[in-house]
């Protein structure tokens, strides 16, 4: 995608997360420990950029996303929107709510099957009383639908009458309705067919170009994330393992986990079949009892005793950051 926007030091981030922690207790009085879904994540999102987040299932991507939009209140840490904290007493201030929107993974379940597309897209407008009901509302909804490439004359139909890709467009139209500054997308294309994925990915790219909205793009498909993001964060068991400009993270991964991930990803080129791949042993550990020290040390080929004792911090490695005691330094 477009080259990375200007250096960030100069600009204020729109969204900043610092020291986010979130645990889930499963069930009332359950004896199992809490699931530590997110355990200490910091990140900044700058205006107009796309921040990609990749990671394996259960590593806390969705939880992070929900905290970023204020659906979940962090146990520790704080999310700020242009310097203002998300949670003041009572809840999320309405104007911040308006400015930060979300697109969900499953386009079908994120649209109420009992509402027409018009009502779905109009919901945010009604809640925030942005447009009076009636003609004005219909025009505005039509406009939003056109923006995402849907024909406005189908606005009185129900979600199940649309195909997967179209449904996801409805979800995007809803997110755009309040003219947000930030849209957090939690795996917005994983539920779509491969032939439709590209349509939606292209739509995101185009919307960002034309509207300048900042995106957090969460996915487990490395190639898709690479394709849309300026910067990429790699999560492992509730923490960021690596973070930096997409080209840097993909081109010269510093964290062993990133390397393994890139190496394990199947490549649709039969010619490359013979390449040597890093095959990790075992499954990711359970987030209920994350390993001490570096969370990756149980599966890491580089691990030493130190890794199982000292938790590495996210530190600058070249143009990006990695949380590894033995991070791969750029050759130069």
């Amino acid at each position: 995608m477009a080259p990375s926007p200007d250096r960030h030091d100069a600009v204020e981030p729109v969204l900043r997360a610092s020291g986010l922690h979130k645990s889930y207790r499963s069930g009332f009085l359950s004896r199992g420990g809490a699931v530590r879904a997110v355990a200490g994540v910091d990140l900044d999102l700058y205006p107009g950029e796309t921040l990609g987040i990749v990671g394996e299932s259960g590593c806390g991507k969705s939880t992070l996303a929900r905290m970023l939009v204020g659906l979940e209140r962090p146990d520790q840490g704080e999310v700020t929107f242009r310097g203002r904290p998300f949670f003041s007493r009572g809840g999320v201030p309405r104007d911040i709510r308006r400015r930060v929107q979300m697109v969900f993974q499953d386009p079908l379940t994120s649209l109420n099957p009992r509402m027409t597309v018009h009502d779905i897209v109009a919901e945010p407008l009604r809640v925030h009383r942005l447009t009076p009901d009636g003609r004005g509302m219909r025009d505005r909804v039509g406009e939003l639908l056109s923006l995402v490439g849907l024909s406005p004359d189908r606005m009185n139909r129900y979600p199940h009458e649309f195909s997967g890709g179209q449904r996801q467009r409805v979800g995007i139209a809803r997110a755009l309705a309040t003219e947000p500054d930030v849209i957090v997308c939690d795996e917005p294309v994983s539920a779509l067919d491969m032939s439709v994925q590209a349509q939606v990915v292209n739509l995101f790219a185009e919307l960002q170009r034309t509207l300048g909205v900042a995106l957090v793009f969460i996915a487990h498909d490395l190639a898709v994330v690479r394709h849309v993001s300026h910067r990429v964060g790699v999560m492992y068991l509730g923490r960021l393992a690596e973070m930096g400009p997409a080209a840097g993270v993909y081109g010269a991964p510093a964290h062993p986990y990133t390397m393994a991930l890139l190496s394990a990803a199947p490549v649709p080129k039969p010619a490359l079949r013979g390449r040597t791949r890093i095959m990790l042993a075992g499954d990711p550990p359970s987030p209920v009892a994350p390993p001490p020290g570096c969370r990756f040390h149980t599966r890491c080929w580089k691990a030493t005793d130190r890794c199982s004792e000292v938790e590495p911090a996210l530190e600058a490695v070249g143009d990006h950051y990695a949380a590894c005691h033995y991070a791969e330094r750029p050759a130069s």
Partner: protein
Amino acid sequence: MSEPPVLEIRDLHVTFKAHGREIQAVRGVDLTIERGQTLALLGESGSGKSVTAKAVMGLLDHARVRFETARLGGRDLLAMGPDELRSLRGSEMTLVFQDALSALNPVLSIGDQVGELYRVHRGLSRKQARARSIEMLDLVGIPAAAKRVNDYPHQFSGGMRQRILVAMAVALEPDLIIADEPTTALDVTVQAQILELIDRLRRELGTAVLLITHDLGVAAEVSDRVAVMYAGRIVERGEVGELYDRPAHPYTEALLAAIPDLDSPATELRAIPGAPPSPAETPPGCSFAPRCSRASEVCGSTRPPLTILRTGSGRASACHHSEEMLDGALT
């Protein structure tokens, strides 16, 4: 060609009835897999991949299934009675499901479920079956298998469960393993492990594998041959390298162009417009025509049959324009 193919299916049709309408899920599929070979059946959701697999396994009770030919290792499946067919299932041809959690019975122990194969097909006692199960679980890499045979599915991680399914699939050294999206529910790192495992067992046992997937990457990594399905039909098939290099069907071509490439991220993706047709519909011409950039008049009216292409090596494509595509690619 002394040995017959492990699986030979000709003209498979499957029709469901729902809400008073007929759904033609599979409309004339041919499949042939040789011994030791992996055939990837590619296609997007709803194209009829799973239905094809279930029809081969004989698991479709409520659908109308019609074959012209169905042979497993030269034996005619159509001529067999239900008991005979049942004795083949699980021993000669086996199935690996996509979602291991729902495919394992939550109330039976792992040992019971794996051992059942030995008891049903080999007539082993409970104890013998258990011993064999432990061996199998060991083979697929379950740590401390002897201790864990009595555990229940919910006590295993996703990757482990998938391994257990694989163990069941290879337990009786079948001729054919049908793996229905065996790795889509898994993480990339675990997916690689499982694919590797299936591939290793295939090599060691000389089994044929029908790998169902919608991931072009997965197909590229492990298969020898590829068949691409669209709307209940196979639209193209061929040897994997050739097919990826020079697709002879516009759908295959468009799919390949729609995947983001790690190495050239900046280019815009070539999206395929529209959505796949509903299986309830039967337009007269080519099913892909409404979305196809090459479509001409004939595509809308006449359905192109799957024809062998002159490039040889068993390539075939169902498109009125495949020859010009190949020519274009050659030049």
